[in-house]
């Protein structure tokens, strides 16, 4: 069982993992999700997955799922640097996923889910 929290803005993650999973669903943008993760890191949570998972760049997908520990306390420097760099990277890419057709949107959800799925497999070992 996962000891941690999955922060996501991807409805498919909620759907796949069901109501009992430690999922925090936020209806927000890709960057806002990274910022929500950053706020938790500031409180002492550690990243368990890379915030720029996937080669689909920020701006090309609206969805992002990140696993963090529930830890409180000292700030983890590595997590902090990863999340800061990820937030900075958002600015480098053009926004265009808001113009996707519905079918493409579903593809984006699926890809984000499969990236998370791989990480969950590692986390649950």
């Amino acid at each position: 069982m996962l000891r941690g929290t999955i922060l996501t803005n991807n409805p498919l993650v909620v759907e796949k993992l069901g109501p009992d999973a430690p999922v925090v669903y936020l209806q927000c943008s890709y960057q806002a999700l990274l910022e929500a993760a950053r706020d938790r890191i500031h409180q002492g949570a550690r990243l368990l997955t890379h915030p720029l998972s996937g080669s689909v760049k920020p701006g090309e997908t609206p969805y992002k799922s990140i696993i963090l520990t529930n830890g409180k306390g000292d700030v983890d420097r590595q997590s902090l640097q990863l999340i800061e760099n990820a937030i900075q990277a958002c600015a480098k890419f053009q926004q265009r996923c808001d113009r996707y057709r519905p079918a493409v949107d579903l593809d984006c959800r699926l890809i984000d889910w499969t990236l998370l799925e791989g990480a969950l497999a590692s986390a649950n070992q």
Partner: protein
Amino acid sequence: MAKLRVVHYINQFFAQIGGEEKADYPAELRVGEVVGPGMALMQKFGDEAEIVATVVCGDSYFNENLDKATADILEMVKSQKPDVFVAGPAFNAGRYGVACGTIAAAVQEQLGIPSVTGMYVENPGADMFKTKVYIVSTRNSAAGMRDAVAKLAPLALKLGKGEPIGASVEEGYIPNGVRVNFFEKERGSARAVKMLIKKLAGKPFETEFPMPVFDRVAPNPAVKDMAHAKIALVTSGGIVPKGNPDHIESSSASHYGEYDIAGVMDLTAETYETAHGGYDPVYANADADRVLPVDVLRDMEKEGKIGELHHLYYATVGNGTAVASAKKFAAEFAQKLKADGVDAVILTST
């Protein structure tokens, strides 16, 4: 096509007026004259461009009368309506390099005329201006004139014609932080193997992507008499008066805030807040003393633990990891702090 019009800037030495003893030579416009290194430039320009005027100015004069000299020279350049402005090359001459960088940047920014200069990479002017104007990388003495002009002239022509400028290694300018693509002669793997062989042999090699560098500054002496010291507060946590009167942006701020806290004993939710977008603002908004400890320092001021809390504080929104932009601001307000007789600084970051 008509020849491109070029204005050339040189110092008293290259104008053969004299050395250090003539460095106070004021700025002078010589219309229709090609002086010193201008000859070599003209040769390289061929039919494509000509130097229509030369500005001569002493290095001491320029640096000691920075504002006036800059303004005067801008007028001179403007009057000649050039297509491109060339300064130097300055090689390793420090004040000449700073003058070339200053005036080339000013011509480009204020007159909108493309500008280029040249100097040795360790010339202080290089670091100061490499992100503002193209600076051709030269050798450290005038013995490298031929080589310098060979790079300077073609780059000036391209700039004058408005042609796209290639990567630094192609054009010969000092890297300016803007990454530009180009095709190498060998593929990447072959370059990597060569680089590794050099690195293994302890020979010099050149990385294609330098990592951000961090320099160090030696610590200043400790404060001897805290009870009479003037302490200033600086924060990168974005604490601003409520309503953010200066409109400090939440990230990548283009300016910093200077705020008067004379008579302010405590920062409250009603009076101060954070403009920083890099952390959860709830706690700082509720009580900004959590980032900028004004309340405690006022107590200590009263108790005589410190001499005085400086009446101005400075605020930026620099994240811990993004330091580059804040550097310029800090250099600026540090001078103000010094001028105001501050003895020591407490800098708080989130």
